[in-house]
Structures are given as structure tokens and as C-alpha cells.
């Protein structure tokens, strides 16, 4: 999220805009009260429209290509939360690592409520994500998969970005609930990952009982 007043220069520009805004309203009011009211409404609507239009025109994401992993090793980054121990995901991973010297990193985003996020109260979310991660790593171990794991950012895209800096994967596997049940699919997480990261992205849908 971008703080609209990040510097003294931003604040100074805001002062100038405020002077112009109120000067026009006062001039309109001097002509006639209703003219002043019309100017107020027009300027306010215009300001809101401008702010909303700017938000929609945010810069496109920078496509990131992590440095390649060692040539004799195939690295897979898995991002999953509630579906992290799902049978479909385990099956996909077994197919991916078969016959390869593979290394798997599972990242469990610490999903949090907006209120707790704003209060930086993330301990419970991280604990819950850690518990899911531990259970899924145990499940992977039971089917013979080698994997490491870590709790990531609550935003899955941010969690992937964080992991890219240290893990350097060759491919990315995103596991979600089926359409209609998945918040991540509703938010377009898979599409955003494909758009932003220069990696093969596999989407696995997991049906949990």
C-alpha cells in the first residue's frame, strides 16, 4: 500500500492543492451560494475520480526471473496453505521429482485477518501456518518426498517473491481449493504469479474432504 504523503514535498504539493481547492470554492460562493456549492461538488467529485483513476493506472508488475539453481539440481517451490497436505498436491510433486535430483521448498503463507494485519498481530497466523506446514511435511516424508518448509507472508504473491530471493526455483507449484471455494483463485493469485514470475507455474486443485 502506498502512503500518499511520503515526503515533505508531497505534503507541500497537498498544501498547494488545498489552497486552490478552497480558493475556487470561495470565489464561487462570492458569486452565489449555489455556485459555490456547485464548485465544491464538482471539485470533490473530480478529486475522487482522479484518485480512483490513478489507482487503476498503477505501474505493471516487474517480471522477475530468479537466478538459476545448480545445473544438477531441480528446485520446486510449492505455495499452498490449507491444501498443503492434499493428495493431489502430493501426487503432482511425486511426478515432478521422479528421476530427478530434486529439492522442494514448501511455503505456507501465514493468512491473517485484515484487522490483525494492520495491527501487526501475526503471531497466531504464523503459528497456525507452521502447524499446517509441519503436518504437510510429515505427509510428504511418508510418501518419500524430500522437502523443506517455511512460513511465508500472508500475501501469497509476496510469499513467492520472498522465497525467490533465497531459494532460486526452477518451477513453481501453486495449490488451491477448487474454483468457487478458493479465495486465492478469486483474487487471481495464479494469474498474477504467471504474469509476474518468469517460471513455469503449475496450478494444482486440491479437493479437501
Amino acid at each position, binding site marked *: *500500500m502506498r*502512503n500518499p*504523503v511520503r*515526503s*515533505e*514535498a*508531497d*505534503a*507541500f504539493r*497537498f*498544501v498547494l492543492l*488545498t*489552497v486552490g481547492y*478552497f480558493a475556487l*470554492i*470561495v470565489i464561487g*460562493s462570492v458569486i452565489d451560494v449555489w455556485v*459555490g456549492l456547485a464548485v465544491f461538488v464538482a471539485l470533490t467529485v473530480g478529486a475522487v475520480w482522479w484518485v480512483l483513476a490513478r489507482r487503476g493506472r498503477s505501474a505493471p508488475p516487474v517480471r522477475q526471473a530468479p537466478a538459476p539453481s545448480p545445473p544438477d539440481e531441480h528446485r520446486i517451490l510449492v505455495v499452498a496453505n490449507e491444501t498443503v497436505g492434499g493428495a493431489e498436491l502430493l501426487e503432482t510433486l511425486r511426478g515432478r*521429482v521422479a528421476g530427478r535430483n*530434486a529439492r522442494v521448498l514448501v511455503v505456507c503463507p*501465514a493468512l*491473517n485477518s485484515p484487522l490483525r*494485519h*494492520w495491527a*501487526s498481530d*501475526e*503471531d497466531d497466523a*504464523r*503459528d497456525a501456518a*507452521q502447524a499446517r*506446514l*509441519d503436518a504437510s*511435511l*510429515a505427509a*510428504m*516424508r511418508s510418501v*518419500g*518426498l*524430500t*522437502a*523443506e*518448509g*517455511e*512460513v*511465508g*507472508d*500472508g*500475501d501469497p504473491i*509476496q510469499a513467492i*517473491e*520472498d522465497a525467490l530471493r533465497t531459494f532460486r526455483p526452477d518451477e513453481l507449484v501453486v495449490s488451491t481449493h477448487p474454483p468457487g471455494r478458493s479465495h486465492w483463485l478469486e483474487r487471481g493469485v495464479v494469474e498474477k504469479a504467471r504474469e509476474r514470475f518468469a517460471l513455469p507455474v503449475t496450478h494444482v486443485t486440491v479437493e479437501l474432504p
Partner: protein
Amino acid sequence: MSAVADSHEHHGPPPIHYSSRVSPSVLGMFLFIASEIMLFGSFFTVYFFDRVVNHSFGGHWPPPGFHRPAYVAGVNTLILVTSSFTMHWADSSIKKGNRAGLQAGLVLTLLLGLTFLLTQVIEYHRLGFNTGDTSFASTFFGLTGLHGAHVFVGLSILAVMTVRAFRGHFSPEQHHGVEIGGIYWHFVDVMWIVVYVTVYLL
């Protein structure tokens, strides 16, 4: 394939993940702005309630016998807006390594702010009414006094900034104190423009 499943062991409090938190400075700024909006909003609510709903003055605003010194306050507004320009000059100067510009800008801003506050105090003495004389007088002194308190806080911050500027604490690389103080001063300026237009002109 070796079966090494390891979930990075960690003891003690969760490791710091700044990316999963709102930046403390951003959160602080938003909380501060939110608290100020609520504070001024409550005063403006009382003001507009009195002006729109209270008909005990026979539809006259201000009530008969009360005069708002819009001209003096207008001059004061020019002084405060000018102080924003000098504040911006100070900040721009230190970014370019011009310490003399920083010092001159801060001194001028401080003097202009002091002039504003002194003019307001003198204006209070010449108004001819006091806080207890009708609800109009109460809301008038409430809003302008609340803003005056903010100017006083801003002047205190400016005084510290000025002393630090003369001691050479700021440089093009390190001038966070000027940035934050400048943002606060501009906020005080913006609030005065709202108060002036609302209370004195409209």
C-alpha cells in the same frame, strides 16, 4: 532420494517478517492522520450542527453583534501559507547540501509561525466576545484554539529542528527530522485553510 523433511526450527518469538507487516512509519502516519481527522471532525460537527440546526439566532450567522475578523485572519492565512513555502525551501536546500538555505528556511518558518500565533492571540483580545458568549463564540474559539494548539506544537518541533540545523545534524543523506517536521507543518497549514474558509468566510 534422502528423506529429509525439515521445517526450519525456530525457538522464541516468531522471526521478523517485515514484508508481512504494515511498515511502522506508514501505520504511524495513518493512525496520526486518522486521530487528527476525528479530533477536528468532532469540532467541525459541533460547529455545523450549531450553524445549521440551531435557529436561536434567527437565521443569522454569525449572530447579531458578533463580527468575524476575516481580513486579519486572511493576512494570517497568507503568513501561514508563506511559511509552507519557506519550509519547503528549507527541505529542498538540505537535499541539495545547502545548509545555509536550510537554516534560513527554518528560521523564516519559525518567525512566520510565531507571527501567526501572536496575531491570533492579539485578535482574540480584540474580538469583543469570549468563549461563554453564545454557542457561536464557543465553537469559534474551539476550532481556532484547537488549531492554535497545533501551531504551538508545530513551533516547538520547528524550534528543535532549527537548533539541530545550526548544530549541523542534517545532511543531504540524513534529514529525516526535517521531512517529518515539514509534513506536520504542512498539515497544520492545510487545517488552517479549512478552518479559515469554514469559520471566517463561508
